[in-house]
Structures are given as structure tokens and as C-alpha cells.
């Protein structure tokens, strides 16, 4: 059952149980159990290794159905912060996701220009996978109408828009196994062991919340088989929980100017047209109102605007079946070279 639908299914339980578990019920005094923690950590070490050995090959099967939405494949993506669009600085916010396409077709420049200012690219590029990544992608898959409520199209496996492979069963298992490792040293050891299997050294970690590590580790496990490129030499986890895989590539150069960036009005117009020709218009016309957030991306040899556009559209309440007209945010990718100017 779809997660949120399963969550809805809980609504109809006996009110006795709802009241019994009410947040204002008395708090039970208790104690922490060091023994349990140590046991759990030991168990987690064993289970993660076992799960990794069994599941990673399964995750890398090639016979799983690919995601047919969104239409744009996001391989080889370089992100530039929204500050760039506002005329700010670039800093070190670039990263490359699903680097296989990037490696196959690396950019051919060693700097790029935004708003008249040139920025160098050193291409000691990082691959970031964070909890935000995975949760955002899960949202994205659910948010695609025609897919979200029909999980048969994703029986056990989901691809995200940038090729990230998610298998809900494994996601679940990995989460539980890693949750048991509340001790930071144990988590580090788990990651180190997982990385060592693929010849990648683990340089260190900072204290981060366990959930972040859990999801990061799961994503890492899902992707690790695709990172067996000799140019990936080191992995580091930063305080935000991002695992950075450093790779050694030559300097390149990219170029874009402010004039190349489409205006918000052009983005809104394109988004409205696209929405009205998609499943978003299933229950009535969609009105795109404004760009809520945008950033510049580079992928597959060209720049794109990754825009979150606020729209009004008619949708249906999953619980009551009633339709209503409400605002929501839809993500679009607008090619810079086709900016509507």
C-alpha cells in the first residue's frame, strides 16, 4: 500500500486506542538500557553487512522498469545555487549527480560566467546524497499524478528523476538496521565496512543526526555499485550528513550569461502550458501564478532552470472524494536556450 494511504488507513482504528495513546496521557518513567544498545549495535553491524551483500546486487538489476516521468533525464547534473541567479557568488555549491552520464560526456570548459563574473571549475567534484535528496525524490515520485496512487507501476523498485534507484523494501530494512547504531563510532564503522567492500576509504565523519545517516547510508548502498569508477577515490561525510565522493577529473569550463536565463514570466508561461497538457489538468485547468524558487542546473551539455512554480489547480481529497481548487507547487525544468525571450 502506498505509504500515505497506509497512514490514512490508520484513521479508522478504535477510538479507545487513539485516546489511550493521546499525547496528553501520562509520561512513563523509565531507564536507558546500555546492554540493549550494545547488543543492537552488534546486531546492526552483522545485519548491515549481510543485507548489503544480498541486497546490493538485487538493487542493481537491470530488468526493473524505468520511470517514464519526468520527461527530462537528469544525468550529469551540476547545481549552481540560487544566489547565482540573484547575482551572488557561487561558492562551492556545485555537485554532480548520477555521474555516469557526466563521466561519459564531461563538460569541455574550465570556467563559467554568470552575470558577467567568471567562476573556475576545478572538477574535484563531489557527489552528494543527503536525506533531503531521498525525501525530495520520494515526494517527487508520489507527486506525479498517474503514478502516485498506482504503486503497481513500482512494485518494489522506484527510480528517481536523476536515476537514483530506490527499493522500498530495502529502504525499510536499511533504516531499521542502521537505526540501531545510535553510537557514532558504530555508525562510522558500518559505513567504513560498507565502503571498503568497494575499495573506497572512509575518511571520517562528524556528529549528525541518526536519521540523516540512515538515509544517507541507504542511498549510498543503493548507489555504491555504480561508483566503482577508479576516479572515485575518497568518501567523506560532512556535518550535514552528506557523503562526498571525490573524483579526479581535468579542469573544464562552462559558460552562461545573465541574458541566457529565462525570466520568471517566461517560466510561468511555460509551466502553465506544460501543466495544462499533463495529468495536472486532469480535474480542470491549471493556473500558474509565480515562480517560488529556482536554480540553475547544468546537465547533458546544457543549462536548465530548475523551477518550483506555484500553481492553482483542481484536485481531489483522497479521504472524502470531494474536489477542491487549491494552490500547490510543481517542479519544472526549463531549458535555458529555449527561454521564451
Amino acid at each position, binding site marked *: *500500500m502506498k505509504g500515505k494511504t497506509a497512514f*490514512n488507513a490508520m*484513521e479508522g*482504528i478504535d477510538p479507545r486506542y487513539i485516546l489511550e495513546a*493521546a499525547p496528553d496521557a501520562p509520561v512513563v518513567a523509565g531507564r536507558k538500557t546500555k546492554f540493549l544498545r550494545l547488543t543492537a549495535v552488534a546486531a546492526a553491524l552483522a545485519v548491515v553487512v549481510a543485507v548489503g551483500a544480498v541486497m546490493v546486487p538485487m538493487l542493481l538489476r537491470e530488468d526493473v522498469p524505468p520511470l517514464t516521468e519526468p520527461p527530462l533525464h537528469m544525468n550529469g547534473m551540476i547545481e549552481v545555487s540560487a544566489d547565482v541567479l540573484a547575482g551572488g557568488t557561487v561558492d562551492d555549491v556545485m555537485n554532480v549527480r548520477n555521474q555516469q552520464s557526466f563521466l561519459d560526456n564531461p563538460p569541455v570548459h574550465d570556467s563559467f560566467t554568470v552575470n558577467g563574473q567568471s567562476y573556475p571549475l576545478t572538477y574535484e567534484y563531489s557527489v552528494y546524497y543527503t536525506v533531503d535528496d531521498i525525501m525530495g525524490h520520494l515526494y517527487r515520485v508520489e507527486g506525479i499524478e498517474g503514478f502516485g496512487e498506482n504503486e503497481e507501476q513500482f512494485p518494489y523498485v522506484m527510480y528517481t528523476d536523476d536515476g537514483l534507484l530506490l527499493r522500498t523494501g530495502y529502504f525499510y530494512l536499511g533504516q531499521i538496521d542502521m537505526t540501531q547504531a545510535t553510537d557514532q563510532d558504530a555508525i562510522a564503522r558500518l559505513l567504513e565496512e560498507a565502503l571498503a567492500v568497494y575499495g573506497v576509504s572512509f575518511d571520517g565523519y562528524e556528529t549528525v543526526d541518526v536519521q540523516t545517516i540512515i538515509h544517507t547510508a541507504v542511498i549510498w548502498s543503493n548507489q555504491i555499485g555504480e561508483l566503482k569508477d577508479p576516479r572515485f577515490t575518497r568518501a567523506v561525510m560532512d556535518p550535514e550528513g552528506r557523503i562526498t565522493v571525490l573524483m579526479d577529473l581535468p579542469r573544464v569550463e562552462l559558460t552562461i550569461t545573465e541574458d541566457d536565463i529565462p525570466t520568471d514570466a517566461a517560466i510561468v508561461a511555460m509551466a502553465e502550458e506544460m501543466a495544462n497538457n499533463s495529468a495536472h489538468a486532469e480535474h480542470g485547468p491549471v493556473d500558474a501564478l509565480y515562480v517560488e524558487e529556482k536554480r540553475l542546473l547544468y546537465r547533458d551539455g546544457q543549462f536548465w532552470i530548475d523551477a518550483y512554480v506555484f500553481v492553482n489547480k483542481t484536485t481531489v481529497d*483522497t479521504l472524502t472524494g470531494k474536489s477542491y481548487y487549491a494552490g500547490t507547487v510543481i517542479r519544472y525544468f526549463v531549458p535555458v536556450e529555449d527561454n521564451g525571450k
Partner: protein
Amino acid sequence: MTDSDIIRLFFDRDEQAIRETRTKYGKYCMTIARDILGSEQDAEECVSDVYLKVWNSIPPDEPSSLKAYIAVLTRRLSINRYHESRAAKRNRELEVAFEELEACIPAPEEAASELPELLDEFLAGLKDTDRRLFVRRYWYAMMPAELAGREGMTVNAVTVKLYKTRNKLRKFLEERGYKL
């Protein structure tokens, strides 16, 4: 004021009913909405909607437990509002809860009508602590850390207990012929 008194005010179309409801259950509703939405402002707006919803639904509804009735409405409206919110505002913990439940509850076409009864039967067979943890996690959307504080356990122990309970639920449903 008793629940019966408040319900009578609703039936009398006396707006004091909303004030009394807010006084008695406002904090409770806010806790439910906040845990689901992860935002104080969203929770406040949602709870305001709850009062309006209660005003419009009582009468004709005459709940036997006003507290449970309001809790269900708060949860339902919070989840609706949550699904309308944008990606950046998404509550990671709630998404995790979705994922966890997804692995142990069958598809709706296979169990739509009898699922509440099955869940009740399953919950009835649990130890008090396990049932309270399960409902707090998957009905109230409380985070493991919060559950740990409430139950006097480690986060570790909470997640292990929830894990075992989900496995029990999956097995319970599978034994009744449901494929997950």
C-alpha cells in the same frame, strides 16, 4: 465543562462551543497537527480549520467521544494540508512513517473495507506499551525521539519495538491471506 455540555452548545449553535473546545482540546489538537505538519504556523491554521469543521459537522454528528472525534478530524485535516504543502516543507519524519507503514499494510483494493477491523484486532492483541508506541507513531506521527522521552526508553529501544510490531502486523495480515 464536560464533553456532553460542549456538544450541547454545538447543538444549540452557541459559539461558546468553539471557545470551550479550544480551551479543553486546543493543546491536544495542536500537538497532533504540529507532529504531522512540522510547522507551528501551519498547525495553528489547521486547528482553526478543525474548529470550523466541528462547528459544521455537530450537528448532525453527535460523537460519543468528543476528544476522539476532534482528534480524527485534526489528523485528517493535517494530513490533507500536509499533502498540499510543497516539497521543501515536507516533514521527513512523516515520510519515514509512511514508508514504514507501506511495508506492512496491504493494498487498499485487497483490504479496504475490513482493514480498520483487522487493525483493531491486531492492536487488541498487543501489549499496552507496544500498542501505545504503534498508535503514537502511526496515528499521531510522533517521532521516535519523542516516543523515547514519553516512554522512558532509548530511541534505540523504541525503533526496535516498532520494527517488531510492524513485522507482527505484516505477519498477522499475511496469515489472513493478504499479500504485501
